[in-house]
């Protein structure tokens, strides 16, 4: 091979070696992580425990369900909901339906905690007379769990939840927590009353 041809060929080989190595190491695909398909079930784990942990799981799964219904990604939906402005009926309905889906999924996977384990948190600040609260605490766990199936309580809570108000205050953690807890308490009490009858 003449030196005249050797230099360009050597350069081409060097370029091919560098580019080949880079593409083999994932250079073609490197970019920000793409959003997952919200219509496919993903593993959701909450670090919080009790009512807050349950709420986190429901919200994360609920967002997937809502995004799937709205034909968008979970991330795009969250960014849209974080912007100020009124929510459309479609968005409100999709979020509520997504939360229902979340309850159904956790129920089907037997991941819902028994109501007795959440009772203490629900009763704090519930407004129920002290006597009633003591009476409820005195009830055996089996009776509470039998009368208050968690899935039913949560479905009722989702129905009672003011989703539009929740979405309007989505950037305020305290307000969100307050609205969710209020809805769960209301559902528990309603279910208790229904069960006692």
């Amino acid at each position, binding site marked *: 091979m003449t*030196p*005249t*041809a*050797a*230099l*360009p060929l*050597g*350069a*081409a080989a*060097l*370029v*091919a070696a*560098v*580019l080949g*190595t*880079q*593409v083999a*190491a*994932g*250079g*073609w695909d*490197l*970019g*920000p*992580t*793409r*959003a*997952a398909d919200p219509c496919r079930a993903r593993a959701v*784990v*909450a*670090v*919080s425990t009790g009512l*807050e942990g349950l*709420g*986190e799981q429901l*919200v*994360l799964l609920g*967002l997937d369900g809502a995004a799937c219904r709205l034909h968008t*990604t*979970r*991330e*795009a939906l*969250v*960014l849209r909901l*974080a912007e100020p402005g009124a929510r459309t009926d479609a968005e409100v309905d999709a979020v509520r339906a997504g939360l229902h889906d979340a309850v159904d999924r956790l129920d089907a996977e037997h991941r819902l905690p028994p109501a007795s384990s959440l009772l203490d948190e629900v009763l704090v600040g519930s407004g129920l007379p002290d006597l009633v609260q003591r009476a409820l605490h005195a009830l055996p766990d089996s009776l509470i769990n039998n009368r208050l199936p968690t899935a039913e309580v949560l479905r009722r809570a989702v129905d009672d939840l003011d989703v539009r108000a929740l979405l309007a205050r*989505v*950037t*305020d*953690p*305290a307000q*969100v*927590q307050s609205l969710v807890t209020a809805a769960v308490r209301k559902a528990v009490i309603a279910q208790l009353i229904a069960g006692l009858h």
Partner: protein
Amino acid sequence: MTQRRMATALLALTAATVLADSAVVTLALPQILRELGGSVAGVSWVLIAFNLVLAVVAVPAAWLLGRRAPGPGTALGIAVFAGASAVCASASGLGVLIGARCAQAAGGALALVGCLELLVALTGERRGVRLWTVSGVVGTAAGPVIGGLLTEAFSWQSIFIVQVPLTAAAIPVALAVGKRTPIHPECAVKHPDSADFACSTAHSAHLRPGVPESRRPAVAPNVALALLSAALTAALFLLVLLLVEGWRTEPATAAVTVSVIPVAAFLAPWVARALQAGPQAENVAGCLLVAGGLCGLALLPATAVVATLAPQALIGLGLGLTVDSLTGQALHDRLPRAHHGASTITARHAGVVLGLAVLTPIITVDLRHAQAPAQEAITAAVLDAPLPGTTKIALAQQLGDRLLAERGRVPDLHPAFVALHPPPAQQPAAAALESGLNEQLDRAALRAFRHAFLAAAGLAALALVPLLVTRRNVR
């Protein structure tokens, strides 16, 4: 060191300093933007104005220099350059800085073509042209590195302050060398009241005997130079932008990183000399290396500074093989030398302006388009982080504030995490999340630069066309 060697070194240093100015402020642009205000587009004119004026003024400067002995003209050019550098250093507004940069380029054009003539007068045709060319390559490649280090160590003003004594020292040299050089009798007849220095030195037995000189500019090497300069601008400007603005690397680190290009450019002639492949093969190989290196920057497999080293080495080798060789071809057996030297300056700096004009809109649009995927990736990372929901919402609020505060630039997310004050138990998860979010931002920035790097690679590949067409015609 003899007086002749000292004079040669000072003139070569002046040529390198003027050509380094083409990109010397690249790493300083963010600091200039912060201190002098204005828009990103406005600040980019600190770079564009210099190259544009240099491209436009180079040929008229050569004509002007050809009418008189080059010594005083060169000295005047250097003085204007040095004076304008001092004005740049003391500029309190963007308008003054851009105006002074234009004056720098006008003086620099005169200084550059004058240095070519004086270097030839001092060292002979072949060595003088080579010294001038190599000074240009070194200056172009090392400019951003030196500018970055000075900005980090002192301030952006220090870049211009340093230039004043560096170039001013060559003023007496230019006057002395210009006075000593003989004037060819033929030129004295043609221009009895002036000294056509280009003519005089070209005829002083430096040209190869029996080879007819040409007055027509060498089109193919100049077109290839313009296209390669456009591509090389991308290599330096875009890479520096990616490192400093995209990956938030300190200017000094960025400067050391991009020093791979001048180091490789310095080694390239040794490789060429060992292979003895000839200028045409060097040019073709150089274009392939620059295009390949730019493709490599577009396809980095990791958002780490170390990943840029191999593509940079390819670009540096290509730079060292081509610019030197193409400039030599453009000047080979052509007279007046100053005019042809000026044509190569025009080609190179018109190429720089072309590169900026082509690539700036691409990178601007792509950076805008990169925001949505980056935001979604960050949102996903926050939602999936092993942190309590209330912490995530508070963090999302802080991150949103950071995005707004940075006004479209790649944000520094650290203040959002500092403001979060997570309890000790959550701190490892928060730190991991911060690292993950920065990785997502780095990836988004890298992806945003992909099209611009590929377009620049296309410009480098396009430089092969005039070279190969000329080769066919020669055959």
